């Protein structure tokens, strides 16, 4: 069967069971847009190519399937560079197809030519410039394989226009026909290292499981829960792992790091064993590396061998898939005599989530006292910290004189939405407030830009998330600064009937920058004021086909959220007027040791 390169590309995407792609056509990609008309693949027409990339990311975050985006050459390719870099940092599987000028024009500064593979080399897991139409099915199969296996990540296929137009004989490559002699991801951990890790875990008196985004990528949440419950080890979930372990679980300490809660941060600082699962010792978690978890023996499990010993030398380094290694660890623990049947893996464990910390580490097992007695002092210490330093904000009525407390808005939103609501955020104060005040009890309910910190991520990513999970309620929690960067994608959402909801925490400032200028630049505010009324967010939302609401007083919060939750035929935007003076606490100042964590002013010495 003869096909054009363009037809072969679309057919290859169909072979990969792509159900949706996000994109915007243009000159060099024109041939590929023609067969889309006849394809089963849904195409979502974005308003800016950056939106296509972030939508594909949001889709991938919540479904675990690779997100697909397609744009043209030159400026379109450079516009999608930010999502590629974002996906690379957060290990999101993405397949991006870019058009390219005809091969005869490459290198001549042709119209809308850019060196797309060169530009994206450092921010993709791999990329391909296709120069022969006959290579297209194989390259597409390779691209999906590379994007989704090992440590997931973005890949890019650059497709010159003459290659799309050229004819080729259709085929679909089998798994053995991929030409990737240098690509061999490792899934299984070294059994000797796993056994050593199990021994350390059993001997530890102050263990902490430091769970990162790799747990979610590996679909390892159930295994993690079993590991925590059988060993009694408490779990911190990083920004990328929120939801990987239920926040309401008694062993969950919540988020560590620069804006993590006191208990999560101090638990790591005082731990004698740190079991890092799919986490990468990011500087926002470790603070000053030399002072991070000084007493801890480190067991580090990661599918990317390059993450092992990169920042902190591991005492036991295990290269492998988080779920596979965690399950091997559970078996090794069983062999060493730790009670708890592996069969509980299937049932997921049914312990009440509101039991006190450390209570009945192994439900219904007579020998459960083993971890409990050894860890009793540790659990007591953690409980004491939790009681002494909970997350707080001023709830008094007079406190909202300067606008709504963002924490109050988030609590109200959390309590008024279904438990499995997907929350998507941008980057800044609102992101930290959301990660702190939401209660994440399910995996894949939190979507945000962690590593790259991409402002403007929330609106398009929430649209992609809603496309991936139309059955779920999707709320974007955004800042006013972030919203202005990519808000035009709400036109896409309205046109495509994708009913996302956006809560703008509008404090009229680039809030996180403002917080740093207040704390570290003697309140010299430089270029951070945005105005609460310019733009008029309600009218802007309405102009984009959304329902726009404004909320200025605490008693309006609940009704507005209820109204938004009832709308299911179009996007809703709520402009919450929040307090510009509110800061995110706790905070570990950049470059400082985690021991120097700054708690909320009300919790500091002398204020009690």
């Amino acid at each position, binding site marked *: 069967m003869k096909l054009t390169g363009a037809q072969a590309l679309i057919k290859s995407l169909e072979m990969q069971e792509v159900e949706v792609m996000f994109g915007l056509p243009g000159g060099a990609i024109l041939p590929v847009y023609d067969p889309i008309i006849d394809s089963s693949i849904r195409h979502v027409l974005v308003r800016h190519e950056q939106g296509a990339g972030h939508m594909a990311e949001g889709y991938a975050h919540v479904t675990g399937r690779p997100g697909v985006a397609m744009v043209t050459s030159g400026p379109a390719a450079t516009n999608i560079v930010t999502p590629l870099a974002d996906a690379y940092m957060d290990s999101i599987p993405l397949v991006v197809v870019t058009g390219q000028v005809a091969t005869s024009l490459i290198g001549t500064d042709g119209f809308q030519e850019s060196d797309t593979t060169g530009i994206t*080399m450092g921010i993709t897991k*791999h990329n391909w410039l296709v120069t022969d139409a006959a290579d297209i099915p194989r390259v597409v199969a390779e691209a999906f394989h*590379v994007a989704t296996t090992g440590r997931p990540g973005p890949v890019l296929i650059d497709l010159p226009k003459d290659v799309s137009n050229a004819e080729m004989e259709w085929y679909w490559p089998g798994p053995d026909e991929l030409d990737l*002699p*240098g690509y*061999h991801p490792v899934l299984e951990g070294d059994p000797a290292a796993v056994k050593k890790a199990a021994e350390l875990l059993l001997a530890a008196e102050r263990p902490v499981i430091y769970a990162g985004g790799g747990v979610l990528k590996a679909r390892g949440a159930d295994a993690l829960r079993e590991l925590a419950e059988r060993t009694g080890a408490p779990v911190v979930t990083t920004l990328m792992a929120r939801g990987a372990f239920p926040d309401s679980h008694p062993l969950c300490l919540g988020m560590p790091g620069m804006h993590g809660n006191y208990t999560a941060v101090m638990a790591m600082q005082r731990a004698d064993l740190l079991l890092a699962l799919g986490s990468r010792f990011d500087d926002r978690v470790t603070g000053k590396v030399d002072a991070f978890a000084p007493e801890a023996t480190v067991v580090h499990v990661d599918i990317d*061998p390059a993450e*092992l010993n990169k920042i902190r030398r591991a005492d036991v380094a295990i290269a492998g898939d988080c779920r596979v290694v965690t399950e091997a660890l559970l078996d090794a623990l069983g062999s060493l005599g730790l009670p708890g049947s592996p069969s509980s893996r299937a049932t997921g464990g049914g312990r009440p989530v509101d039991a006190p910390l450390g209570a009945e580490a192994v439900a219904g097992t007579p020998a459960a006292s083993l971890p409990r007695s050894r860890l009793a002092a540790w659990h007591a210490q953690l409980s004491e910290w939790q009681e002494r330093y909970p997350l707080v904000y001023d709830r008094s009525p007079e406190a909202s004189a300067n606008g709504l407390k963002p924490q109050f808005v988030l609590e109200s939103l959390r309590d008024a939405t279904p438990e499995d609501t997907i929350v998507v955020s941008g980057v800044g104060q609102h992101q930290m407030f959301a990660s702190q005040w939401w209660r994440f009890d399910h995996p894949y309910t939190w979507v945000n830009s962690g590593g790259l910190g991409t402002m403007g991520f929330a609106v398009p990513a929430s649209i992609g998330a809603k496309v991936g999970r139309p059955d779920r309620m999707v709320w974007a929690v955004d800042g006013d600064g972030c919203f202005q960067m990519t808000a035009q994608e709400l036109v896409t959402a309205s046109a495509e009937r994708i009913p996302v909801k956006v809560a703008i925490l509008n404090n009229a400032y680039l809030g996180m920058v403002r917080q740093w200028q207040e704390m570290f630049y003697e309140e010299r505010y430089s270029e951070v004021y945005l105005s609460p009324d310019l733009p008029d967010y309600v009218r802007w939302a309405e102009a984009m086909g959304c329902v726009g609401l404004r909320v200025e007083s605490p008693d309006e919060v609940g009704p507005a959220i209820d109204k938004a939750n009832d709308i299911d035929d179009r996007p809703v935007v709520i402009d919450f007027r929040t307090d510009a003076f509110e800061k995110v606490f706790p905070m570990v100042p950049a470059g400082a040791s985690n021991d120097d964590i700054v708690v909320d002013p009300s919790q500091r010495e002398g204020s009690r």
Partner: protein
Amino acid sequence: MPAFGTDKRHHTLTVLVENKAGVLARVAGLFSRRGYNIYSLAVAPSDDARFSRITIVVDVESAPLEQVVKQLDKLVPVVSITELDPVNARERELLLATIEAGEAERGQVIQLVGVFEGKIVDVGADRLTVMVAGAPAKLDDFEDLVRGYGIVELQRTGRVALPKLDRSAARMPASPGGRPRVLDDHDPTQSEKAG
């Protein structure tokens, strides 16, 4: 400059890569974006047309060698990486130099080239172009010695290297120190297979 082979800062990586467009840019780009220093680099097709071999001398003070190797290995077209430490490798390099050699000095330069087992590859009115091949330290010495005559132009190729051979008579497995460390066992070429 310390003689090569005693300098602990340098390690030689022999990297087998797919022979595809842009692979050198990927390797070089990785070094620059992660802040690793390349001391020298040589690329040539291998005995298998599908692959090329890149010999990279890295300055390991700029980054732990372990990180450099692991990051390199993540590049999809990188098939295998063999680390040769200076003590256990045979390393060679080629030098071409045009040297000022008027009538008075010509004989001395030719003699020096002879001592270093080099060749005269071109003769001009008052200049000679010479070629010397050998261990990098030997070329350093040659360079020092001819500098006094006046070097017009000089080019060196960068190092290529192979592991030292096993000298035990019974051909028993060598001591671990005498073998190259193969860091990826997926090498499709026979010659790279580790024992």
